[in-house]
């Protein structure tokens, strides 16, 4: 009974860890100093949520695995994050759009999770819902500025939309584990976030003068560990210390 919730929590935890990792890659290299402060903030929120989720997943599993063992010591095929979050940063337009897409999903998700049958999930949701509301605002404002800024920024923003939009569908996709966790009332049904996600994004896109593309072939596979090539490189950074110096505490 606990296995589906464990796996569904890992899906969520991996999404947060990997997106947090990507955002953190900007630290010290942002286009302006204010963003060198804002991006680590978002990364910290993501990693904080990942830690709570891994810790709880480890408790559910009951085999003594802690947050670090779950975050660092799995093989690439065992990471269950959606493909969107592992996409490389490319440029600031891609980075902000990725953050917006994810936050626009997580906000209604955490809101729904406030009604979870599981007390720990409700606790994590309560903290995270405020954080992602800020991410929507922050990333959304940038998408508007860039979409309705200069010719170059508009072009880059639309290119980011074209490139990242095929990864959106996976956010709503229900794995068997997610379904089982939803059936018990522990976690929300991902499919139910579609309307709110679309409203949030349409509102931003209107102001940003961006058009929402039709996606013929959505990219799926992250939940079953079918990742892109970039994921292995991300993991070789992430896991470096734990792999090079096994069984030590830091």
């Amino acid at each position: 009974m606990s296995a589906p919730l464990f796996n569904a929590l890992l899906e969520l935890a991996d999404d947060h860890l990997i997106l947090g990792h990507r955002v953190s890659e900007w630290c010290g290299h942002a286009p302006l100093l204010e963003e060198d402060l804002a991006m680590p903030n978002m990364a910290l929120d993501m990693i904080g949520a990942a830690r709570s989720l891994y810790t709880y997943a480890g408790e559910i599993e009951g085999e003594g695995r802690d947050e670090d063992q779950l975050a660092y010591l799995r093989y690439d095929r065992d990471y269950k994050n959606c493909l969107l979050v592992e996409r490389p940063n490319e440029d600031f337009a891609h980075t902000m759009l990725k953050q917006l897409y994810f936050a626009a999903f997580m906000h209604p998700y955490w809101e729904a999770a406030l009604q979870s049958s599981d007390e720990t999930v409700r606790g994590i949701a309560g903290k995270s819902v405020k954080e992602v509301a800020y991410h929507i605002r922050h990333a959304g404002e940038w998408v508007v500025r860039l979409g309705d800024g200069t010719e170059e920024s508009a072009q880059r923003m639309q290119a980011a939309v074209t490139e990242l939009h095929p990864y959106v569908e996976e956010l709503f996709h229900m794995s068997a584990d997610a379904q089982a966790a939803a059936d018990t009332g522990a976690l929300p049904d991902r499919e139910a976030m579609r309307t709110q996600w679309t409203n949030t994004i349409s509102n931003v896109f209107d102001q940003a003068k961006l058009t929402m593309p039709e996606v013929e072939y959505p990219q799926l596979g992250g939940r079953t560990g079918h990742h892109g090539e970039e994921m292995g490189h991300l993991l070789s950074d992430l896991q470096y210390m734990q792999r090079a110096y096994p069984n030590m505490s830091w």
Partner: protein
Amino acid sequence: MYSQGLIGADGATEETEEFLAKFQARIDREEKIEPNDAMPNGYRKTLVRQIGQHAHSEIVGMLPEGNWITRAPSLRRKAALLAKVQDEGGHGLYLYSAAETLGVTREQMTEELLSGKAKYSSIFNYPTPTWADIGTIGWLVDGAAIMNQIPLCRCSYGPYARAMIRVCKEESFHQRQGYEILISLCNGTEEQKQMAQDSINRWWWPSLMMFGPHDAESSHSEQSMKWKIKRFSNDELRQKFIDATVPQAEYLGLTVPDPELKWNPEKNGGKGGYDHGEIDWDEFWRVVKGHGKMNRDRIKDRKKAWDDGAWVREAALAHAEKRAARQTQHAAE
């Protein structure tokens, strides 16, 4: 980092003696000088230079530690490191704001950093090849920064002094956090202890260099002391740092890489202190002049971030203008 800010500072002034005497009297009364107060040109220039260099040090200092964010060995350490690097960016921001009160813009200061005209602390021109360096930087580099900055909380220039009060609180948190990383390593395996020892071997001398040249060679120190921008000499602060730090190294079970280091009970007016070996000043000047291992990389990285971000900053500006124009049009209708 911070007394290095005075290298080459030109405190020369042209004001009348009466004006200078009145200004000095304010300083001597420990009055804070505020942005709109009359001040000698040399005072202003010295501060612009020092605060600017301090700000640049915070910003460039994000790079060596940022190098380990994606590879931090645990989630707890990763979060702490992210927060620390973010704090350093915040320090840069307050300091640029403090410098801006003296009539320079952040853009001007940034351009001077990127062109190599403005300096930053030479400590950040050393690389961070291992995780232990994150501990050592927190302990030694933030530790040396605190030693330098605590007296700056009483600096005669109000905005700088106030920025320093906030910054110092965070720096001491960073120092404890760095030391705690080293405690974990020193309580760990043989590999971890070696990693820590290797790191202190590399960072000890550069940390001592952070206090700047010997007093005798620090040409503008005297004027800065008189203006109460500076309160202690480079050598005094360095000695304080050594005396505070050596026992911490001993507690860790690490050796400070100075064979001449010896407790001298006569030192500090009979309170005791450490005698130490001579700093390699050739290395110091070499790194200050741009020939350290990482000087070129640091500037290249900052320049890349700045250049790659140009379109973002332009877009933000263009968007703000469009918005303002739409608002004016709206109001006119």
